[in-house]
């Protein structure tokens, strides 16, 4: 293995476990890569070189002592979205209000990663409190897309997606409230999975919209995402909304998919997730992907989900409403920023001054929209009606999954847009979540797998595969089959087309 950073997580694990290389060597290679390119990409908010090397050394020591690997990913490095609490690293959520905050406990996802011997390299950049689709809403500056450093890497998990595309890490963790794993995956040519709601614990995941937030795996291949999914997934008594059911057999499904036979699989193309507002090159790449699924034996039909047209407005009422309540915890009293405490001002004044200084514009907008939507007199017309629309969207999914096994669409209507292009137009930014939101509202599983590049700009396009609740394995099977066929046809992986960042480094 010449360049360890170009390998998949599965390949790295195999080489580490067979002692062809060591976890320390692999970790060092990724830390070196970060040092070389993160000045240009800015995927990380915090890098824990010492902690990562110590964790890697512990894995090597156990393997050298003849013990079995703690998990199939033991020794493999990972980039962690800065929205999960870590006792040994700061947790900022991309916000000034939590600058430098060191939580007193680890999130369950973090605990599981450590127990599995996964090496956490550091914390990745994100839109503040996961509100955004470009990572421009981070208080610590934007992350840049490794495909084109003038463009956004998606959001809110743009740090995680960019770290993968920049070969700074083979694995990453994201969270998906309205598309924050899948849309960054789409625009960076990487794989992003939103598990079924409740499939991955939310304990220690700083809450934005509790009924929608879901952590999940990010990787450069479908199999790697599946391996990570099985490490972090499963019931957690510390999260009362965690599903008490076995993790769907996603690794087996990904391995089965690689065989490339989709005969008997019924694929539904969602009528409503196409047409006006979609970039023509995205639609062409999507159509070619659907053709490929058909060539693999899938039976493709068109399916209408009429209420999906109302998913975006319903989401932008429900998510801000929950956020206005959740973010009330940032009150300048127990942790985080406090400003204006001059011994004359009241707690309430200090609270308002702190929140004004500590939150960015998008967070303030959403808190105010949520406050509005939950006000008496507006509640029924806004929040109440949005909850009813949510029911209708779930019913659309139920009806569709009565006749097909999975649904497909483009992951997001366009390729990566330029940094700054939508910064002053919140509604234009919200449209990036058009195709991903329905699965957050209904809670079912959905993922994005790269499906080539758009012919007008050469930037990556994502194929979204949506599966029924707790049938996450279906998406993995279809995506793995598609990915294998795509790479076979192209003669190489899509991600290998990312430009040389050392040259581009500024």
């Amino acid at each position, binding site marked *: 293995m010449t360049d360890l950073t170009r390998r998949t997580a599965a390949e790295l694990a195999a080489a580490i476990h067979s002692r062809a290389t060591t976890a320390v060597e692999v970790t060092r290679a990724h830390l070196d890569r970060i040092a070389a390119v993160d000045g240009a990409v800015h995927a990380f908010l915090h890098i824990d070189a010492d902690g990562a090397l110590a964790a890697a050394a512990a894995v090597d020591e156990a393997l050298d002592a003849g013990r079995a690997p703690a998990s199939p990913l033991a020794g493999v490095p990972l980039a962690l979205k800065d929205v999960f609490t870590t006792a040994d690293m700061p947790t900022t959520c991309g916000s000034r209000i939590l600058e430098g905050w060191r939580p007193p*406990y680890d999130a369950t996802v973090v605990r599981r990663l450590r127990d599995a011997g996964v090496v956490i390299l550091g914390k990745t950049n994100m839109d503040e409190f996961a509100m955004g689709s470009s990572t421009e809403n981070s208080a610590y500056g934007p992350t840049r897309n490794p495909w084109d450093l003038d463009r956004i890497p998606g959001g809110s998990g743009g740090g995680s997606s960019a770290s993968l595309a920049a070969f700074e890490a083979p694995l990453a963790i994201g969270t998906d409230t309205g598309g924050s794993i899948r849309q960054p995956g789409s625009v960076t040519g990487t794989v992003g999975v939103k598990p079924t709601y409740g499939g991955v614990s939310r304990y220690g995941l700083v809450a934005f919209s509790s009924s929608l937030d879901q952590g999940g795996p990010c990787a450069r291949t479908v199999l790697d995402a599946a391996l990570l999914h099985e490490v972090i997934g499963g019931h957690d008594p510390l999260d009362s909304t965690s599903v008490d059911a076995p993790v769907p057999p996603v690794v087996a499904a990904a391995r089965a998919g690689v065989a490339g036979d989709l005969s008997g699989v019924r694929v539904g193309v969602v009528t409503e997730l196409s047409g006006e507002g979609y970039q023509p090159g995205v639609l062409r790449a999507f159509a070619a992907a659907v053709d490929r699924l058909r060539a693999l034996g899938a039976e493709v039909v068109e399916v209408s989900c009429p209420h999906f047209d109302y998913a975006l*407005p319903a989401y932008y009422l429900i998510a801000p409403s929950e956020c*206005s309540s959740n973010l009330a915890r940032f009150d300048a009293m127990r942790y*985080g920023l406090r400003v204006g405490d001059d011994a004359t001002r009241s*707690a309430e004044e200090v609270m308002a001054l702190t929140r004004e200084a500590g939150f960015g514009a998008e967070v303030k907008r959403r808190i105010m929209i949520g406050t509005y939507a939950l006000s008496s007199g507006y509640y029924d017309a*806004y929040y109440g009606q949005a*909850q009813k629309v949510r029911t209708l969207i779930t019913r659309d999914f139920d009806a569709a999954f009565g006749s097909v096994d999975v649904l497909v669409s483009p992951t997001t209507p366009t390729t990566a847009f330029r940094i700054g292009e939508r910064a002053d137009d919140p509604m234009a930014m919200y449209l990036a979540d058009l195709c991903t939101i329905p699965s957050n509202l209904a*809670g079912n599983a959905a993922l994005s797998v790269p499906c080539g590049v758009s012919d007008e700009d050469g930037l990556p396009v994502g194929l979204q595969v949506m599966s029924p609740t707790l049938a996450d394995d279906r998406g993995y099977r279809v995506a793995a089959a598609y990915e294998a066929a795509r790479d076979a046809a192209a003669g190489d992986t899509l991600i290998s087309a990312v430009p040389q960042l050392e040259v581009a480094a500024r």
Partner: protein
Amino acid sequence: MPTISRTEVAHLARLARLAVTDEELDVFAGQLDVILTSVARVGEVAADDIPPTSHAVPLTNVFREDVVRPGLSQQQALSGAPRAEDGRFRVPRILEAEDRLAGPTMEAEQ
């Protein structure tokens, strides 16, 4: 539907404990109006007889055994506090001057 005024945005900001500036009020008023007008489209859906969904996974109460287990230590709980004193959170005054003279009475809801 909505045209949201600058005054209404100022009211929302106060409810949400955000000491927004005058310049922000100008920007936010326009932006919130665009957003709220757009999301008001949910009203087009005939849904009078549809039950609301508050959560993707239908759940009732989740119970666990009532056993004592360690929580955060005092030191851990105070580790992120902006100010602490005598092992407690040090907070700015919570009563107005006249309240302090009059003693602890409930402030009327606004």
